[in-house]
């Protein structure tokens, strides 16, 4: 089964994706289908609280599968506007809709130029499928 990487998202080499709302400078962060496939069953998510500050390239939370613990990195500087309580409560469902219902946090970005070095869907696909 081919993994999907929607064209309207930006991707980090640490396998988070970013959905950018240009008008309001709001960035929605999630985990790519590739990373979820690699991790296997997700059993735990730790996310920052609303109002917390996140920094580009810094860890804002963790995702745990049965076997592994992985840091989650932010692609931008900003403040956490929302976190997805439903997915924190049922982390095993993240794989069902990683780019939709299973987003993690929404960030009010200080500067959307932080995302300039993120990858396009094509670039990301090349990276993960070439590996």
């Amino acid at each position, binding site marked *: 089964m081919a993994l999907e990487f929607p064209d309207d998202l930006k991707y980090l080499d640490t396998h988070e994706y970013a959905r950018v709302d240009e008008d309001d400078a709001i960035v929605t962060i999630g985990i790519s289908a590739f990373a979820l496939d690699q991790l*296997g069953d997700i059993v*735990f998510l730790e996310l920052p609280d609303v109002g917390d500050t996140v920094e580009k390239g810094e860890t804002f939370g963790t995702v745990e599968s*049965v*076997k592994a*613990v992985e840091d989650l990195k932010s692609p931008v500087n900003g403040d956490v506007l929302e976190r997805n309580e439903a997915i924190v409560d049922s982390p095993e469902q993240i794989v069902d809709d990683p780019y939709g219902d299973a987003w993690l946090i929404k960030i009010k970005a200080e500067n959307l130029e932080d995302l300039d070095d993120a990858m396009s869907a094509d670039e990301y696909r090349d990276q993960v499928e070439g590996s």
Partner: protein
Amino acid sequence: MTSLRTPLYDLSANLKARFTEFAGWEMPVQYSGIKQEHQAVRTAAGLFDISHMGKFFLRGQGVLAALQTLVPSDLSRLTPGEAQYTVLLNPQGGIIDDLIIYSQGTELDGRERVAIIVNAATTDKDKAWMTEHLSADIAFEDVSRDRALIAVQGPEAVAQLQRLTAEDLDKVGRFGHIEGTVLGQPAFLARTGYTGEDGFEVMMSADGGQALWQTLVENGVMPCGLGARDTLRLEAAMALYGQDITDDTTPLEAGLKWLVHLDGAGEFIGRQVLEQQSTDGVARRLVGLQMEGRNIARHDYPVMQDGAAVGIVTSGTLSPTLGYPIALAYVPANLGKVGQSLAVEIRGKTFPAQVVKKPFYKRKTS
């Protein structure tokens, strides 16, 4: 160095297993998913490729008496067809490895036959230790890289295996073993496992193992990887060598007192330390922890009490069967009683935990 592959590697690759490097072997870590595989073993049957484990056959005069000098269990209790789970000890009482010793009886010329199965990562170390301490008259055959070893585990495992052999498996008790045929090929069948369920571990030639694997899969037994093997054994509170038991932990500290027979085992390497600990009590104990929240305690996380680190987590996971995080941890003996409140430090924060009874999961026996 290229990784070793078991005789079942290609069959696992065909099943789209995800592989991982383990003790020098390229081993399947999961097939359909750890939770699904785990559940299959708890409710039906699963099969595991454990061909990477060390497999030795010893033959000679007085093999068990010679092995007795290396282990704290009374091997004179072993009758042919029985097996003993035990540990090799260093002079400090630390565990060189955990292993199973199978008594296969005595030949007409008086030579004893003994099979031994050890961990993959410690195969070479164990072999060196044993051959160093055993008489050269004892033939030591290492078939670790040649034979297939398959674990069939779960409430339906025995029935699944029974379809493929004429041997009456009901007559083989827990830790019993027989030599017979499976699918018409020679097999060593032992009623042992590392999942907390009933089942067998079957050693065959590479060809025989491949045939057994394929037939069990075709008959609906779920292929399971090392991932599920780890969550299953942890629920059953079975120790993992290199994490829960090491060269620096004694069997008494690790809660393996049931395999230490100071009365019957005679002189064995490490005895003095075990005697001392038996008299004085141990300073630390391997205990079961249940996390009170959802945060998962994992290997090497500190165990905390009143803000100070008092112990260390050796294994931890979210229990697929129980739905909450469980862990094994070494803690000071006075903090090791069931019901004791402790905490585990996870990424800089502490989360409450409680000492609970081991095993975390126990199968219902009918």
